[in-house]
């Protein structure tokens, strides 16, 4: 339990580090520098990799749903999101409903 608390606090400090550092360097460093562009690429790739990985190879609750269902729900969410002019709420709601409906059909409700 203590270990877990330390882990969370460690992660919190690691996150605040950037917010605080932003305070310090504000106005002093050029944001176009190569380092920041590279760091931005790594951050994007990391979040994309994590999200796609949870969708393709989930652990826990989601692992009970078949891959084609998750993919179909994801595609439906994306289509609805763009059709509704990037309305996040509508897109996510569509993905949620799609997954639950597909799941319900499969398990024969």
């Amino acid at each position, binding site marked *: 339990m203590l270990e877990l608390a330390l882990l969370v606090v460690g992660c*919190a400090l690691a996150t605040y580090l950037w917010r605080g550092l932003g305070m310090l360097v504000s106005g002093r460093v050029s944001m176009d520098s190569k380092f920041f562009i590279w760091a931005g690429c790594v951050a994007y790739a*990391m979040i994309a990799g994590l*999200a796609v990985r949870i969708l393709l190879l989930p*652990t826990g609750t989601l692992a009970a749903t078949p891959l084609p269902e998750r993919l179909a729900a994801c595609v439906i969410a994306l289509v609805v999101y763009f059709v509704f002019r990037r309305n996040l709420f509508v897109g996510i709601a569509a993905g949620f409903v799609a997954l639950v409906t597909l799941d319900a059909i499969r398990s024969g409700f």
Partner: protein
Amino acid sequence: MVLAAGYLGFGALANGSDFPLWAALLSTVTIFALPGQLAMLEMSIAGSVPIMIVITVALTAARFLPMTVALLPMLRSPGRPTWQIYVAVHLLAMTGWAASMRRCPELPLEQRLPWFVGFALTNWVACVVFTAVGYGLAESLPPLVRQGLVFVGPLYFVLILTGETRTRHGVVALACGAVAGPLIHLAAPQWSVMLGGLIGGTLAWGLVRAKKRA
């Protein structure tokens, strides 16, 4: 509102993965950055070494540096003690940042920080509440709805990243990361988030650079 859905999903995911409620809440209070929290949750379940988890979370949070740098000049006003801003930036996250960048230039200097804090604080409290609600709901809901709720977390990022990424670097990095993350996960689950980001991101950076030169 949508961020709330993300935290609802995070709470449900935490419950589905046997992550204790107090730790999920503590992470929303102290970290307040959904990608980092998801990474922490997934990695700690996969059994990664704590120091690797902290480093990965640090890397996912690196976006806050440019965000803070961009927003701060707007929040500063003469006579305001610096420590107040240091406290306020803890509340900086995607939603509040985007709203403040749009809204602050319209406000007088001395009202900007209070406006930002008011907006971000509301978000923060709502997110803590929704983490708990998601966690609680996950137990009482039928498995079908629970799966849908857990699905919301990653879906939120897939949508927001595909829809809101405008720079060429960003788009290429998303594509590289989306391929690299799952592939590396097959070989080394504990390392996939970090290695996927480093390899995918560096590859994207190199590709855009090579393209510019050609």
